[in-house]
């Protein structure tokens, strides 16, 4: 404990774009290292999604009438894909609030790093995991008889829409993570995910729901993504007369942008207010 240490010289200084990039890569790397260290969390998350698929496919599948007499499993999967994006919110929230609570965020803030990287690093890591999740879900779908019947371009477009929704929801998760503390908060976010996921057209036709509930389900951003991706994958869907259903492809882009426009500034402002 006696050796003297010279002050090492930092290579680059300032908060320029290059530094935001470097620091974001470092923090994304941190999350990847978490996955390697602690794969159980990821496996649990993937397993949850897979169990949901199997439950719906084998347990409830028989009882559900599929529009146009199509394949139930083809009908099911686009809803499941979008749903996993919803269930990713709590992951983001937990990661952010844990860092704030433990003081890790304060340590970052006391360092001469690019502040934006703290949020960007989180967003990139969660997007990477979203891609992994989506690919695994598609493989599970293929295994149980789901098919993407559209062109390669349409399939990629559908994947893009699903990931766009996730990207928007990441900022909801970051915002909630900065606002809420502790186990209670996490439970709160997780209970929010269920109505958001199920009060949609993922499993049940909104037209069979009571009027107002059906309207909420149709206007749920998740429903637009589900409808649009069903079209792109060439899978059967519900249809409907309302404007939001007729313009689902447009809304599948508009909704995430609206969510982003609201929650990204909120998250950034909330982050800045850590110093109030």
């Amino acid at each position, binding site marked *: 404990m006696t050796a003297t240490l010279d002050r*090492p010289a930092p290579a680059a*200084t*300032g908060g320029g774009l290059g530094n935001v990039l470097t620091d974001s890569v470092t923090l994304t790397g941190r999350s990847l290292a978490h996955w390697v*260290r602690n794969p159980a969390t990821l496996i649990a998350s993937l397993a949850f999604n897979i169990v949901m698929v199997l439950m719906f496919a084998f347990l409830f599948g028989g009882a559900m009438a599929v529009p146009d007499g199509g394949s139930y499993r083809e009908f099911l999967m686009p809803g499941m894909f979008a749903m996993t994006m919803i269930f990713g919110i709590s992951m983001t929230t937990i990661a952010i609030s844990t860092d704030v609570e*433990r*003081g890790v965020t304060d*340590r970052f803030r*006391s360092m*001469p790093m690019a502040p934006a990287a703290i949020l960007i690093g989180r967003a990139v890591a969660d997007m990477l995991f979203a891609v992994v999740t989506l690919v695994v879900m598609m493989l599970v779908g293929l295994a149980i008889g789901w098919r993407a019947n559209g062109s390669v371009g349409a399939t990629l477009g559908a994947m893009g829409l699903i990931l766009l929704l996730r990207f928007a929801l990441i900022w909801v998760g970051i915002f909630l993570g900065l606002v809420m503390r502790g186990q209670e908060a996490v439970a709160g976010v997780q209970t929010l995910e269920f109505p958001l996921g199920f009060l949609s057209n993922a499993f049940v036709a909104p037209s069979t729901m009571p009027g107002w509930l059906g309207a909420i389900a149709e206007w749920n951003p998740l429903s637009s993504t589900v409808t649009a991706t069903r079209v792109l994958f060439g899978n059967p869907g519900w249809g409907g007369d309302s404007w939001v259903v007729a313009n689902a492809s447009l809304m599948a882009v508009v909704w995430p942008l609206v969510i982003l426009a609201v929650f990204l500034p909120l998250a950034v402002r909330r982050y800045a207010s850590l110093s109030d």
Partner: protein
Amino acid sequence: MGSSDLAVVAEGLRKRYGDKVALDGFDLSVPRGTVCGLLGPNGAGKTTAVRILATLQCFDGGRAEVAGYDVATEAAQVRYRIGLVGQNAAVDEVLGGHQNLVMFGKLYRLGAKAARQRADELLDRFGLAEVGGKPVKSYSGGMRRRLDLAAGMILAPSVLFLDEPTVGLDPRGRNEVWEAVRALVRQGTTVLLTTQYLDEADQLADRVSVIDTGRVIAEGTPDQLKTKTGGDRIDLAVHDREWLALAARTVEQLTGGTPELDEEDRKLSVRVANSDTSLIEVIRALDAAGVTAEDIALRRPTLDEVFLHLTGRRPVGEEAKAEKKDKGRKNGKKDAPVAESAGAQEVNA
């Protein structure tokens, strides 16, 4: 003293949270290369002061300079020159110790290679080389704190802030942290350390500022403060209630202080203004008088006693919490190896 000799300057800092005033004209100046102890009870404003100085917190009034730069207008410059070790160990629990230090090193922009090298050096230095690969959640409290310190030392900061660095540690962990801090000070790092324990300030600090309800109410070297508050105390318990009066007379003769008696618990407590009066002398004198001490210990005055003395009242705020934290920490003595301090000076008859 010119301002260039001061590593930390705070002038009239004010901070309120809603109606709650956290800092109310807080002044501090810490000369370069020294250790300043900021001593105060729960809610006194210690953490708020440290957070402001470490550029984490906006404030409502006053000004502050750290390492020669203004914390409000030159935060980036300040951040290159400080290390912060907050109230809880701010390290990634999932990653290993080495991974943590490499990550922070990269964020300090050392570059990957230099960051790894620095991580190795620091782990070595803080006695963590062997556990560097293990996840931090498997570390003991003392190890975590040392890793936390190491992370705060990556750029060898000119000013290091330590906010209650030994809370929740056992004597061994406390000793490890104190040793690490001393090693940093030997290299010329200026340290601002907050604590609720006079003995900790005594162990580490050149000067101590006592803070209460957001302002500094006393300042001086630990010895000056102790003298101000009547020095160390000897606590003594006797087996028989009849012996108490005799013990009190004996102790009074030897130390010159008037003991406070507690008939109920057969205890007495006396200030030893001259701390050279050793425990052994007291025991011998008692022995000669035919009194058997059941339990006897030399201790620093508690923060409560310092406050009582300085302000004529007990610390405001969460007294109960402060007292609870204070338990079992009463036997620290300067220069004694801390690992043994819990029991070393207690003589059970």
